[in-house]
């Protein structure tokens, strides 16, 4: 199985235009803020929304290529796990799972037997005769997964598979889901706005904003070298864009930073909030980055205090409670921010 999609579609003013490839056994996460167009992509892949332009090909079969070809949803070998699962309330768990097999023409007995086997695999054999509303969130999620997988799809599509779960269940179900996805031979596309879900479940992240791909790569790569504010916020890094000339980067938003390794042209620079120091006076001597800032906000985190400061550049700074007391940190306080060149990651924009 290999998916090659060039998805161009939209609703009204909102347009989606992105390329997506998925290999056999690979799990790709579409990560992005709400309204980024992730679900639209999923609906296009499933056949619930026709493309306006572009193509969707799986192996050598064209699923959608306007204006010539459109394989309707019921004839695509896909399995979809919807955000709130959409289990059929008037059918038993077993009937829910067997539905796809029955719809594809399998005899009732065989369909039920196969559905039963799958339910046993996810440890829900004893819930087969229950109504879906009697299931817990985690159980319903597994039923939805099995229902999508039972007919052997080429492509598994999941829309926010963990969003409906409470925090405690989520950790366990996420691990379980990761295991099941690992066993699935086809390709998987997971849509999520939760970076942790994406990092744990996916082999590759595709970051979507405003209907476009803004970055893609392995979870490690994306987490280390974010290219948008959205990702930087998600992974807890400060991110600036600028033009490098040797070891100096002139930042787009004003200000300049000295970096350790020389570079040329447009670059991103990122650094951790913990790597920035705050001082009452301008520190003398060393060739470090130092610039004046004004505190605009304070937020208590688990063991640190996150300080929002405005300056050139404006950044987030993590300090200890001790520093807050020592510097009498409060909104409006005027300070100096200090950052070592070696703490800065620089990569091409």
């Amino acid at each position: 199985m290999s998916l090659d999609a060039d998805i161009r579609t939209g609703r009204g003013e909102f347009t989606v235009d992105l390329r997506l490839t998925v290999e056999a056994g690979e799990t790709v996460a579409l990560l992005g803020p709400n309204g980024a167009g992730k679900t639209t992509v999923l609906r296009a892949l499933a056949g619930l929304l026709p493309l306006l332009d572009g193509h969707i090909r799986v192996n050598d079969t064209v699923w959608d290529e306007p204006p010539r070809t459109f394989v309707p949803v019921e004839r695509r070998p896909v399995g979809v796990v919807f955000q709130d699962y959409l289990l059929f309330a008037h059918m038993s768990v077993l009937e829910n799972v067997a539905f796809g097999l029955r719809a594809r023409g399998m005899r009732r007995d065989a369909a039920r037997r196969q559905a039963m086997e799958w339910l046993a695999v996810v440890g829900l054999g004893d819930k087969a005769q229950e109504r879906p509303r009697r299931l817990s969130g985690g159980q319903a999620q597994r039923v939805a997964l099995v229902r999508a997988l039972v007919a052997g799809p080429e492509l598994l599509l999941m829309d926010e598979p963990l969003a409906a779960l409470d925090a405690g269940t989520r950790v366990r179900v996420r691990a379980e889901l990761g295991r099941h996805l690992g066993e699935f031979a086809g390709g998987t596309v997971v849509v999520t706005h939760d970076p942790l879900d994406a990092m744990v479940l996916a082999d590759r992240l595709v970051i979507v904003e405003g209907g476009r791909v803004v970055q893609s790569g392995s979870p490690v790569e994306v987490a280390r070298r974010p290219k948008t504010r959205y990702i930087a916020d998600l992974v807890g890094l400060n991110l600036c864009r600028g033009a490098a000339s040797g070891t100096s980067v002139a930042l787009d938003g004003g200000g300049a930073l000295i970096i350790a390794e020389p570079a040329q042209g447009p670059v991103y620079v990122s650094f951790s909030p913990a790597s920035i120091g705050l001082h009452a006076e301008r520190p003398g001597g060393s060739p470090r980055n130092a610039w004046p800032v004004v505190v605009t906000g304070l937020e208590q985190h688990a063991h640190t205090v996150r300080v929002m400061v405005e300056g050139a550049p404006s950044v987030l700074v993590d300090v200890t409670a001790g520093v807050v007391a020592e510097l009498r940190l409060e909104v409006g306080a005027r300070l100096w921010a200090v950052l070592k060149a070696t703490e800065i990651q620089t990569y091409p924009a």
Partner: protein
Amino acid sequence: MPWVLVAPAAVGLAFLLVPLVGLLARTPWGDLAGRLFSAEVGQALRLSVVCASLATVICVLLGVPLAWVLARGDIPGRRFVRALVTVPLVLPPVVGGVALLLVLGRRGPVGQLLDSWFGVSLPFTTAGVVVAEAFVAMPFLVISVEGALRAADPRFEEAAATLGASRSLVFRRVTLPSVAPGLVAGTVLCWARALGEFGATITFAGNFPGETTTTPLAVYLALESDPDAAIVLSVVLLAVSVAVLAGLRERWITA
């Protein structure tokens, strides 16, 4: 509580209930069973039940797809069509009867065709009763089912489609079950309305005992000749109405 409101409220309540109580008070209870099974009364009741049930079947067969089109179909002027469907609801039934006569009567455009192609003539026949009742009762079913369809989450149908279900399988296995309560309520309302239908029936189908004289028509006739029979039939219709209300109280009265 202010008397200005309570007094008229009491009068209003009495106005609604006293006639029904009066009907029950005048009912020849001891004689009820005997009269129910008497020739004319039994005949009218049987005819009513058969015609109302047939009319309901027609309404379900035509009305459910119509409701689906109104709720889900992508048709131009859908709101206008929906308004048209509800016209029989407010139209005086006798006007409906006249309209049916003009179109389905022997000289009417459709009636002529039915006559020349199939040799069928609807007016003043039992089939005509069914047609008149279906005409008047169908909006009840359509509105009820359409409301249920609009309230149902169409994403379940999408989920079924992703599982490989064809349109018709989705409709049978997912859509219909999800609107079952609305369909049942609509069917019962539709049947009750057909059972009590008077104006369109007498206009379009006339009044021939055993053929087109349904219970409401029989009540009207018997009032002159045999008041007790009229009362017995009225009590039966009242009982049916109360039963329908009781059956639908969850869905209808509290709504």
